[in-house]
C-alpha cells in the first residue's frame, strides 16, 4: 500500500523526465510544479477548479493541477506547457492572436493541445464543452476558438 504520512520526497515524471520533489501529502500538484520544479507555466488563478489557468496534462488528459494532490500524480505522465515544443497549438495561438495578458494562456493551450490529439475531428459541441473549462478575462474567446479550430479537422 502506498502511503505518505508527512513531508517526503516523491518522484514525479514531468515532461518526460523523472523529477524528485519534496512535498507534503496535502500539497497540490500546482504548488509542487511551481515551487519545487520552477515550472510556472501553470498558474494559480482561482485555486478552486473554476478558471483552468492551472491546467496540465496527466497521461494526456487535461487536469486542473489545483484540484490534484502531488502524490496522486505519482506513476503518471505529467505534461506542463513547458513540455510542449512548438506544438501546433502554440503556433496557432500566436497566429490567431489568442492571448493578451497571457495568464490564462498556458491553461488554454494545454486543453486545446489535448483536444486536438484526443478529438482531432471535434464537433462544435465537443469543442465548446472542452473550452468551457477555462476562463479568459482579456479576449472575447473568438481568437482562442479560431486558434483551436485551425488545428482540428472539422
Amino acid at each position, binding site marked *: *500500500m502506498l*502511503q505518505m504520512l508527512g513531508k517526503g520526497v516523491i518522484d514525479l515524471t514531468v515532461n518526460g523526465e523523472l523529477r524528485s520533489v519534496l512535498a507534503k*501529502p496535502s500539497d497540490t500538484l500546482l504548488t509542487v510544479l511551481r515551487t519545487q520544479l520552477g515550472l510556472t507555466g501553470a498558474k494559480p488563478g482561482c485555486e478552486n477548479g473554476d478558471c483552468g489557468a492551472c491546467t496540465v496534462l496527466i497521461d494526456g488528459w*487535461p*487536469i486542473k493541477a489545483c*484540484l490534484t494532490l502531488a502524490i*496522486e500524480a505519482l506513476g503518471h505522465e505529467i505534461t506542463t506547457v513547458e513540455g510542449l515544443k512548438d506544438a501546433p497549438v502554440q503556433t496557432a495561438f500566436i497566429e490567431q492572436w489568442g492571448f493578451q495578458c497571457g495568464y490564462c494562456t498556458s491553461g488554454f493551450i494545454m486543453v486545446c493541445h489535448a483536444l486536438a490529439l484526443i478529438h482531432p475531428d471535434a464537433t462544435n459541441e465537443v469543442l465548446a464543452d472542452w473550452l468551457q473549462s477555462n476562463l479568459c478575462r482579456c479576449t472575447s474567446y473568438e481568437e482562442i476558438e479560431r486558434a483551436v479550430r485551425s488545428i482540428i479537422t472539422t
Partner: protein
Amino acid sequence: MILIDFEYYKPDTVQAAVELYQQLTIQAKQPLFYSGGTEIITLGRVGKLYTGAVIDIKGIPECNVLEIKNDQLIMGAGVSLTRLAEANLFPLLTESAGRIADHTSRGKITLGGNICGNFIYREAVLALLASDSIVTIASENGCRTVPIMEAFYERLQLAAGELLVQVATDATYLSLPHRGVKKTRMDRIGYPLVSMAALRINNRLQVAFSGVCAFPFRSLKLEHELNNDGSHETRIANALQHFPAPIVDDVEGTSAYRKFVLKNTLEDTLTHFEGV
C-alpha cells in the same frame, strides 16, 4: 494551498481500505475516503473541512471497473465522469452527469465522489435512480448489494466507515428511450435550477430530479401522476403535489421560477416521449 495537513494512504483492496478506516478512526484521525478529491481539496483550502488522513480508493481494482458483464454495466466508484462519458456505455448517465462542473473538472470528479459528496446536487445519481441501479457498499463486515432506491434518501445512506465500491445497472436500461436535461440560470456551467434524468420502460416514465429540492430524488408517487391518463397539464399539476420537500428558493432562482422551469421541462419531456 490546503490549510490542513493530512496523511495519505492508497490501499490496494477494499478490505484494506475499510480496515484502515477503522484503524485511523481509533487513532482519532477522522479519516475520509478520497476518490476524485475535488471536494476535499476545495473545502480544505478554505478551512471548511478537517481530516487527519485520506484513503485514496483509486488503487482498488473494483473501484476502477467500467464494463458490461453478465448483462450489467458495472461502474466503479473511482471512475471519473469523463471516462464514463468517453465510454458512453450508458447514454442517459453521460447526459445527466455530463453537465456537472466543466469538462476538465469531470476528469477528476468521480462517480462515487459526486454521489457521496457534500454538495447537494449529486447529479450523477439521477440516471442511476431512474434506472433502478444497484450499489455495492463495503464495510468491515463485508460487502452488501442494495437497490439504490433503498440506499439513497437525500443522500447515499452510508454509515461511518462504509465505502461505495460500485454501481451496477441492468443492461436493459442502457438503450432505453431517455432524456437528460439540465436548466441553469445563465451559463451552461453552473448549479442547476432543474436537473432531470428520465427514461421510458414498458411505456412508463421513470424520472429523477436534482436542483428542485434540497436533495436529488425519485418519487414513485410523482411518476404515477406523470404516467397517468389525461392531459400533460393535468398530469404535471398533479405530479407537482408529490415533491418530497419544498422547492428551493436561493440565489440561483426563486422557488416560483424553479417551478416555472420545472413545469416547462416536464412538458417538454412528456412531449419528447409521447408527442403533443
